[in-house]
C-alpha cells in the first residue's frame, strides 16, 4: 500500500512539475539593445520621450539610450564597431554615410536577412529622395528620420520699435535691406547670418548665399577638384563679410544666439533646434523662410537617419528583430520628434498627426520649414569620404575673411588650394 501511495505521489509531483515548468519556459526573454544618438538638446529629450513610450509598450525589449556626444559621435561609432561592442541602433547624418558606410550593416543584406522587410518598414512612407539618400554602392544603409535646416528667426518687438510690420518679415533682398537698416537705426543688432559665429556656421551662411546665387556645386561631380572659387562664391563671401563689417548689421565674433535671447538682435539665421531656446527666452519671436536674396531662396539643411552599426558575428536574430522594431517605432512616432525636437519628420504619416499639426512648434515655425523642404529648397552638405576635412578647409578661410584677416578672394583661393590638396590624397 505504501508503495502504491509513493507511486501516486510521485506521479502527482511529476505532473505538477510538468505543468509549472513549461509555463516558466514560456516567460518571454528580455532582449537588451543599445541605441546611441548624437542628440544633446531638445531633440535628445524628444528621443527619450519616444524610447520611453517604446519601453512601455514593449516590455520584452530593454533599450539603453545613450545620447549627447555630438563631437565624438562618429569616432565612437567606428571604434565601438572595431572593438566589437557596437550599439544596435544608431544615427547617421545622410552626408556622413560615405564616411562611415564600412561600419554599418547593409540593411537588405544583413546576416539574418533583409532588415527592412523584417522591420516592416515601407520605403513608400518616405519621400523618394530622402529614402534613396541612404543608398551607397548598391546597398541600403539608412532609414530616414528627419530633415532639418535653417530659417529666419526675428524679434517682433524690435520690428515694432523699428517701425516695421511684425507680421511681415522680409522675404526679398530689398525688403531685407530696408528691415535691417531700420533695425540698425533703432539701436539694435540688425542681423546675424550664422547662429553663434562658429566657423562651420559661417560656412553654412556662405553656402546659402552661394546656392541662392546659382553658384553651382562646391565640387565637380567626381570630387576631383573644388569648383566654388567662382564669381558667385566670391560675391557670396563678400556679402557675408559685408554683413559684419561694411553694413554694420552685426559685429565680428558676435554670438547670434546670445544676442537674440538677450533681446538685442532683430533677425537671426538659425536651425529648427533654436525653437525651445527662443520659446523659453521671453523674446516675442517670429519665424520665416530664408528670404530670397539672390534668385532661389535656398537654405542649409541636413537629414538624420537611423542606422544599424555592424554587429559582431553570431548576433542573435532576435536582437536584429528587436532593433528593427525600435527603428520602426521611432519613425512611426516621429511626430513627437518633430513636435518636441524640431526636426521635420521624414515619415509621411507622422507628418499628418493631428497633435503635431495643432502644436505650437508646427503653427509658429515648423510648417514653414516643412514648406522649404517640400519645395526642394534645403541644400544638404557635401558628400565625400573626406567631407569633414574639406568643410574644415573652407570654413577656416571663410572665418578669416569675415574677421578681416584676409580678403574674400584670398580666402577662396586658399580654401580651393587646400581642398584640391585633400582631394588629391594630401
Amino acid at each position: 500500500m505504501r508503495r502504491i501511495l509513493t507511486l501516486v505521489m510521485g506521479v502527482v509531483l511529476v505532473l505538477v512539475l510538468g505543468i509549472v515548468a513549461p509555463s516558466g519556459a514560456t516567460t518571454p526573454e528580455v532582449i537588451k539593445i543599445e541605441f546611441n544618438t548624437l542628440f544633446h538638446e531638445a531633440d535628445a529629450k524628444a528621443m527619450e520621450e519616444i524610447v520611453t513610450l517604446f519601453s512601455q509598450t514593449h516590455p520584452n525589449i530593454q533599450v539603453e539610450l545613450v545620447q549627447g556626444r555630438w563631437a565624438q559621435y562618429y569616432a565612437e561609432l567606428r571604434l565601438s564597431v572595431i572593438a566589437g561592442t557596437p550599439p544596435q541602433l544608431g544615427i547617421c547624418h545622410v552626408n556622413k554615410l560615405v564616411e562611415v558606410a564600412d561600419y554599418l550593416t547593409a540593411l537588405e543584406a544583413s546576416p539574418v536577412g533583409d532588415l527592412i522587410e523584417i522591420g516592416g518598414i515601407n520605403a513608400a512612407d518616405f519621400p523618394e529622395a530622402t529614402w534613396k539618400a541612404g543608398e551607397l554602392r548598391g546597398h541600403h544603409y539608412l532609414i530616414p528620420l528627419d530633415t532639418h535646416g535653417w530659417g529666419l528667426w526675428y524679434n517682433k518687438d524690435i520690428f515694432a520699435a523699428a517701425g516695421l510690420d511684425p507680421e511681415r518679415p522680409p522675404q526679398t533682398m530689398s525688403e531685407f535691406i530696408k528691415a535691417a537698416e531700420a533695425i540698425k537705426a533703432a539701436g539694435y543688432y540688425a542681423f546675424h547670418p550664422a547662429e553663434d559665429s562658429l566657423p562651420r556656421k559661417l560656412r553654412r551662411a556662405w553656402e546659402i548665399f552661394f546656392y541662392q546665387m546659382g553658384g553651382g556645386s562646391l565640387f565637380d561631380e567626381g570630387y576631383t577638384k573644388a569648383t566654388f572659387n567662382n564669381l558667385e562664391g566670391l560675391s557670396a563671401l563678400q556679402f557675408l563679410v559685408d554683413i559684419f563689417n561694411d553694413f554694420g548689421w552685426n559685429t565680428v565674433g558676435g554670438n547670434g544666439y546670445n544676442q537674440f535671447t538677450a533681446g538685442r538682435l532683430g533677425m537671426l539665421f538659425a536651425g529648427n533646434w533654436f525653437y525651445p531656446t527662443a520659446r523659453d527666452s521671453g523674446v516675442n519671436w517670429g519665424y520665416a523662410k530664408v528670404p530670397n536674396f539672390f534668385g532661389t531662396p535656398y537654405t542649409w539643411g541636413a537629414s538624420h537617419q537611423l542606422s544599424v552599426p555592424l554587429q559582431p558575428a553570431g548576433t542573435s536574430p532576435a536582437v536584429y528583430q528587436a532593433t528593427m522594431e525600435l527603428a520602426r517605432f521611432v519613425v512611426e512616432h516621429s511626430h513627437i520628434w518633430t513636435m518636441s525636437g524640431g526636426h521635420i519628420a521624414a515619415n509621411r504619416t507622422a507628418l499628418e498627426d493631428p497633435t503635431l499639426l495643432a502644436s505650437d512648434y508646427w503653427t509658429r515655425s515648423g510648417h514653414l520649414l516643412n514648406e522649404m523642404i517640400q519645395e526642394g529648397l534645403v541644400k544638404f552638405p557635401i558628400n565625400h569620404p573626406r567631407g569633414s576635412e574639406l568643410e574644415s578647409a573652407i570654413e577656416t578661410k571663410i572665418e578669416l575673411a569675415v574677421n578681416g584677416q584676409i580678403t574674400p578672394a584670398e580666402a577662396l583661393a586658399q580654401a580651393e588650394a587646400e581642398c584640391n590638396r585633400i582631394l588629391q590624397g594630401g
Partner: protein
Amino acid sequence: MRSKIRGFLYRHRGLEGIMYVLPFAALWGIFLAWPVGYGIYLSLFEWSPMRGSRFVGLENYIKLFGDARFLNALGNTFKFAGIAVPLILGLGLVFALMLWSWGRTRRGVGFVQAVLFFPYLLTVSTVAITWKWMFDPDFGLVTHAFKALKVPAPVFLTEPAWALPAIAFATAWWLAGYRMVVFQAGLGDIPQELFEVASIDGARFRQKFLYIILPLLKPALLFSLVLTLISAFRTFGQVLMMTEGGPGRSTEVLALYLYRTGFEYFNIGKAAASGVVLLVIMLILTLIGVKLLGLKSELE
C-alpha cells in the same frame, strides 16, 4: 618553510627590490608603455581595420612634415608655450611671494591662499566656458571693463593676434595656483637667518630676491618649469572649447590637430605619427630640464 624563503631571498637579493616595484611596473607597462609603443607601431600604418591596414613605413611622417596645417599647429604649440609658461610661472611666483611676505605680518593669508588656489580645482571645461563668456564681445566682463575705461576692447577670441594670448591667460589663471603652492613650499625651506643677515648688511628686496630667493628656489622653479612646459605642450581642452582652433587655424595646437586627424577625420596613422612627434618634443624638453638646467644635480 620560513627559513627556506629567507634563504631563497638571501640568495636572490635583487629579487626583493623587483617585487617592490612590480605592481607599479605592471600598471606602468599596461597603461603607459604599451599604449605608447602601440601608438608608435600605428604611426607606421595606414590604419583601416575594416578594409585592412597597410604598412607604410615613414610615409605618415613624411606627409606630416609636408602638411602646412601640421606645421602651423606645431608653431602654435610653441607660441602658446612661449606665452603660457612664463605667465603661469610668473603669476605663481608673484602669488607665492605675496603670501610668503604677508605670512609673517598679516591675518587672512589662508583665505587668500585658498582663493588663489581655487581655480586649479576646476575642470578644464568650467574654466574654458567661464573665460569664453568673460571675453564675449557683447556681454563679456572683460569687454565691459574695457568699455568702462573708455578703451576700445579687442575681440579677444576672434582676432588671431589676441586669441592665443587670451587662452594662455585663462590657462595661467587656472594653473598658477598649483605652482604657487610649489613655490610656497620652496620659500618655506629657505633659512630665515639668510634674510636676517642680508638685512643687517643692508640688502633690499631686489637683492634678496636675486641672490637668496632665486638660487634657493631653483629646484622648485625647475620642477614647475618642466611640469608647466609639458602641460603647455599637451594643451587641448581650453583651445577646443574657447576657439575650436580658430580664428582660421590661428589657435590650432598640436593636441587639437591630433584629435581632429584621429577622431574627426579618422586618419589614425597620421594622428599617431603626430602623437609621436609630440612625445619626442616633450622628451627633449624634459631632458633639457634635467640635463641643461641642472635639475638632475638639484634632485641629487
